């Protein structure tokens, strides 16, 4: 490989690696968002269950 070839290879590799790193960052972000949505869904479920229990208790007292 001549020195000119090496520089062309280096330039194209830099671009490819940058795109791949960007894809990796986005993948990490998507998995974080997935975790957070799961956490919020669990909290919403717990809240609904707690509200239903409160309603049942109020009905029993009434």
């Amino acid at each position, binding site marked *: 490989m001549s020195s*000119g070839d090496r520089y*062309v290879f280096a330039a194209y590799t830099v671009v490819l690696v940058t795109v791949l790193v960007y894809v990796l960052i986005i993948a990490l972000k998507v998995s974080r968002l997935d975790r957070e*949505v799961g956490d919020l869904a669990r909290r919403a479920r717990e809240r609904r269950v707690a509200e239903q229990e409160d309603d049942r208790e109020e009905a029993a007292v009434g």
Partner: protein
Amino acid sequence: MRNNRPALFALATLVLLGGGVALALFWVPDDADQGFSQRIFYIHVPIALTAYACFGWGAWKALRLLWLRDERYDLESYTAVHIGLIFGVLTLVTGSIWARASWGVWWTWSSRQLVMFLVLFLFYAAYFMLRYSVEPGRRRANISAVYALFGIVLVPISFLAIRLSSDLIHPVVLKSSGPDMAGSMFLVFCICLAGMLALAATMYNVELTGKRLDGHLRELREALA
């Protein structure tokens, strides 16, 4: 249709950039002066033009924010500048590699084109420092928008620097009389430019969706707290 936009841009990127790079490496003839190393041109120049386009898009969104007082343009302007800065880094790195291959140095301060692009890059890098030094809200959106609008003035100066300057280090191939290259070279350059713009559009849409999702999740967390 709107939700499919990132996928469509990603597909366009794959076809255009994949095809363009393959043609640049295996099809176009060697440059008579620089030989094989001239092939860096097919990614370096499209990347630089895409960075300008991103900064221009950011300024357009900033103008819309100041004009229409619609805060959603703040996130759009910020995202465009963010993507522009990534392409700015790539411009400097690929340009530096090409400089080393052609001129034997990684950087030269005697070329106004290089210095102007560095000034433009540092100006937009400072955008982030400014943005994160102000509390989120209307004030931050306005200050960021004004800054992004000021920055756009540097884009034509950077683009025209080489045409106005007397140095002959940085080559000029896109002249007012037309492209100074063979038809096949110009065709591959256009394909690579379209591919790079599609890549930027993909990144912009994905980044914007992620930032919007972050905002919605923050609202949900506050509502459920």
